[in-house]
């Protein structure tokens, strides 16, 4: 490891960057591309949300009707609750677990790379096959874990909280690697001198983590939190393939409702719902950015 490969702590070079608005010319192409694939569709979806859409030629203004309908429906609130709970569980399980594994790997020095490659494997599995892998694994007749799970009475088809456990395990399997890789990146960028100084001061393992490592990886963890929040909050592929929202709506998340409306051609309603979801995500992003700017001063 030498030269550019050495993780470089982000030195505060900010004051050395000159102010030059010509830099916008370098940023504009990226912004234009995002405008085309992001901003334009976003404006369209917000606009659709205020209309009743029978076909592209047959569109009627309905004002905020869809929004009030959705916000007043008990189903929406119940799904919102379930999605928020699922996100909270995913974050509570995956973030500490990922940091723990990253800390473990850190102790292995150069060999840690094998661990990183291992946890990155699920990230390259096609999303729609991830639930299939797990359903194959726990299949009562032919799965490796199937007979054992059936013997202890694990019944993901008809017991609500068992389905929850399964979806949470599958989601953790899928995304743990991202948490580990980003946490490890943050941790390995901390100059060894910091930890040596802590050791000389007689700091415990926990306080060294709490007061040196954790603050240093706050930026990496913030992006992990955000990515894991939106992806778990908007979980669809896994949840739908595993039990399609069942048993009796126990795993009916927000996206499953949106999917039903799109499949049912209620485009206006679906767009209003999509706008609401976007606003929720936006609120969380805003909170995170505000917190990050506060921390960085």
């Amino acid at each position, binding site marked *: 490891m030498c030269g550019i490969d050495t993780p470089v702590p982000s030195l505060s070079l*900010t004051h050395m*960057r000159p*102010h030059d*608005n010509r*830099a*916008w010319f*370098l*940023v504009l*192409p990226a*912004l234009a*591309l*995002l405008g085309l694939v*992001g901003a334009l569709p*976003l404006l*369209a*979806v917000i606009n*659709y949300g205020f209309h009743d859409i029978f076909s*592209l030629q047959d569109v009627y203004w309905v004002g905020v009707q869809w929004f009030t309908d959705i916000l007043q429906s008990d189903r929406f609130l119940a799904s919102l609750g379930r999605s928020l709970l699922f996100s909270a569980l995913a974050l509570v399980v995956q973030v500490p677990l990922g940091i*723990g*594994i990253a800390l*473990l790997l850190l102790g292995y020095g150069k060999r840690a790379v094998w*661990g*990183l*490659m*291992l*946890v990155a*494997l*699920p*990230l*390259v*599995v*096609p*999303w729609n*096959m991830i639930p*299939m*892998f797990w359903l*194959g694994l726990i299949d009562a007749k*032919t799965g490796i874990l199937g007979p054992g799970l059936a013997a202890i009475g694990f019944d993901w088809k008809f017991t609500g909280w068992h389905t929850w456990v399964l979806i949470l395990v599958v989601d953790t*399997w899928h995304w*743990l690697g991202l948490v580990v890789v*980003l946490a490890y*990146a943050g941790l*390995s960028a901390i100059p060894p001198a910091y930890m040596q100084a802590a050791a000389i001061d007689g700091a415990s393992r926990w306080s060294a983590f709490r007061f040196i490592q954790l603050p240093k990886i706050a*930026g*990496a963890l913030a*992006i992990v939190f*955000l990515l894991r929040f*939106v992806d778990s909050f*908007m979980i669809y*592929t896994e949840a739908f393939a595993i039990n399609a929202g069942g048993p009796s709506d126990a795993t009916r998340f927000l996206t499953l409702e*949106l*999917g039903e409306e799109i499949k049912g051609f209620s485009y206006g309603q679906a*767009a209003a719902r*999509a706008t609401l*979801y*976007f606003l929720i*995500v*936006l609120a969380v992003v805003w909170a*995170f950015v505000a917190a*990050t700017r506060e921390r960085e001063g």
Partner: protein
Amino acid sequence: MRHLGILALAGFILLPLVQAILLSFMATLPTPAQGSIGLMNYRGVLEDPELRAAMVNSLVYVVLNVVLCITFGLPAAYALARYRFTGDRHFLLVILVFRVTPPVVLSLPIFILFSQFGLVNSPVGIALVHCLFNLPVAVWVLESFIRAVPREFDETAYLDGHSGPSFFFRHLIPQIAPGIGVAAFFCFIFSWVEVVFARILTVTGGKPITMAIQAMFSFQTDIGKVMAMTCLSLVPGVAMIWFVRNHLARGFTLRA
């Protein structure tokens, strides 16, 4: 203790993969019982012209997406790493918001917009729309790598008479080659396996691997063949992980 933890982790990560690989070597019709074992599923996949086309489609759109993200992301990353400018933090906020916008929110208008441009059923459409979440990642990764290169490096290149494109191609890109690899890796993993946009943009043709697999599920699914196709689809991903293994530990952080 430490080793036990790693062992448990390896078991957790590998078990579903082992199951899938086992199934991919079994004859699974009519049921995945004690069928015969062999390469017939892989032969079946490779002899199927639609599945072969799906692999080509996937490779085309992923490569195109990575190229787009690096080409558009590199100048922006350079600007952010080297200059302050009016609205730079707003730009960072905008790319963050687009990175976390759920694809399902935009799927409907994307379909309508892209069908007007004739980008439905083509890998080009998927490559473009995946820039929504990959371009921000490319900017973050590249920016951190460019930041790690001292400013004097740029100044020396300018003194040597290199500016504009020749600076980027002759000096900067070779210097941050690992960064380009890491950016490509993250773009690859978010794009190769994505299903929401891939589904909405391929109605009748141009199906990538994910959607071709989806189409293999029917009343009587040959799960062995499905798993064989899936295992083949892992090969480029595993190769990608291997190529960037020594640079994986760079990641990206929240820039706001």
